[in-house]
């Protein structure tokens, strides 16, 4: 079974979500190729070629692919699908954007955000914000699948696949990139961080996130937030952890002033260790936390910072 994995990258580095998607692909079949579509992607393609178990890397280097907009990605991927039985991409905002276009063009019902592979045609995926897990079997000849990266371990390095350059795609003219405002941070990316510390409505303001950031810097952690904190304007949208934001599964997740709405839990409940700090001892977050600390966060977080400093962090 030939499977195409569409790489997640920013034209400079290959994102870890790609390695995890390869793991899902290898659970479906053994002939796995990676497509790197972008602008100036030579280094990214070379990185992809090092993933163990990959047969070959297809590199498509064209100015229309610089931002991986959906219309341009469709022009590259659909013509390739004659040679593949399945196409997989991580369910990041990039993959979520272009994959259904591929599915519709192929007349296939996409299987979104899988968290498990049962067989080559049967997959497990969360529905109802992760409150239920559906096992679905696809009858389509070709499979179009997005993969929840946190549910799969990253494929190891150690491969030496060949890199093949493919022809320039047609350039769509109906959509164009204007600008982007990316959050700048020296901290690790939310979805890739080993430790995440998130604030909720209990933080009361954006300025107060400074106390969380201090602890994050001590631990080398990423900073996240609940939807309530984002809606209140305390932090930008890309901080949001939850069913409609980012799904994270770090080694350690520290929830500060977060009550634990279902939609937030859906985004972090697969974390290895969960710590909750909240003054309301009845907050639902405590029902899933490994370590709960009932305390006023404005006392507790500085205390935690001092204790970590004492321990040499």
């Amino acid at each position, binding site marked *: 079974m030939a499977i195409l994995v569409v790489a997640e990258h920013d034209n400079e580095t290959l994102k870890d979500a790609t390695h995890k998607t390869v793991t899902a692909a290898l659970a479906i079949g053994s002939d796995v190729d990676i497509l790197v579509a972008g602008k100036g992607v030579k280094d990214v393609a070379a990185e992809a070629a090092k993933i163990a178990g990959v047969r070959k890397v297809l590199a498509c280097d064209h100015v229309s692919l610089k931002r991986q907009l959906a219309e341009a990605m469709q022009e590259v991927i659909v013509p390739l699908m004659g040679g593949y039985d399945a196409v997989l991409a991580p369910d990041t905002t990039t993959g979520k954007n272009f994959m259904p276009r591929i599915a519709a063009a192929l007349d296939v019902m996409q299987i979104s955000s899988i968290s498990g592979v049962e067989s080559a045609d049967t997959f497990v995926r969360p529905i109802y914000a992760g409150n239920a897990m559906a096992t679905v079997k696809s009858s389509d000849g070709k499979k179009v699948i997005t993969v929840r990266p946190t549910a799969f371990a990253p494929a190891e390095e150690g491969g030496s696949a060949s890199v093949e350059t493919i022809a320039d795609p047609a350039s769509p003219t109906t959509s164009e990139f*204007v*600008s982007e405002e990316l959050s700048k941070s020296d901290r690790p990316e939310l979805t890739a961080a080993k430790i995440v510390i998130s604030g909720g409505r209990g933080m009361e303001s954006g300025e107060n996130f400074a106390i969380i950031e201090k602890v994050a810097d001590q631990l080398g952690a990423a900073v996240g937030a609940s939807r309530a904190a984002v*809606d209140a304007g305390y932090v930008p949208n*890309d901080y949001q952890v939850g069913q409609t934001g980012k799904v994270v599964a770090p080694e350690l997740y520290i929830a500060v002033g977060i009550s634990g709405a279902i939609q937030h839990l859906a985004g972090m409940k697969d974390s290895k260790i969960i710590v909750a700090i909240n003054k309301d001892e009845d907050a639902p977050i405590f029902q899933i936390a490994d370590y*709960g600390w009932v305390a006023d966060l404005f006392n507790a977080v500085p205390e935690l910072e001092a204790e970590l400093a004492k321990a040499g962090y």
Partner: protein
Amino acid sequence: MKVLVPVKRVLDFNVKVRVKSDESGVDLANVKMSMNPFDEISVEQAVRLQEAGTATETIAVSIGPDKAAETIRTSLAMGIDRGIHVNTDAEVEPLAVAKILKAIVDEEKPDLVILGKQAIDDDSNQTGQMLAALLGWPQATFANSMEKDGDSLTVGREVDGGIQTIKVTLPAVITVDLRLNEPRYASLPNIMKAKRKPIDAKTTDDYGVDITPRLTTVKVAEPAGRTAGVKVEDAAELVAKLKSEGVI
């Protein structure tokens, strides 16, 4: 500019989801159903476009059982002009929904289709993108701002790294994210007025679309549970626990 807004009737977001004991699905008997929250945002956006004089006509579409007409009625009470109800008791997958919507677009010829980015029941996040592909139109997904500029739209999109702004030529498909606007509550006079607005009754056969599912649900199960752990009293105890777990 004519605007089409597809809306879906789903389990109300405040209702606790219960998986049926035979694992055949989620229990939807006698529970509160509402308009998909993302669709409320797209309805609101369409109504605002009309209030601003940008949209000249707004149409809501829903595909679903008899009661889906109530969801259309809600959008009419919020200010949408008229509705189209494609009546079916079958479960219609996003691909088939997109095909029916394409047939409606071919008839109604809107300049813009605004959808919620996903429905909170199946969490597929597919319909808008599929519709755009079937129509050969550009798409701007996960919109958190929208500005019309001649025959194009400039749309801010919520992406993993922050906000990306793109420009799409009309006609186009937009899917909306949470922070595009805050949907209004329908006032009582508007609810009364909505009762007299027209809803076209259609069936899936009217559009000649094969809605046979491509995915079979093998089972629906409860997610793996987590249980409450222990309480700590202070920072020293917490740091000691985390060290012994090896996570810091």
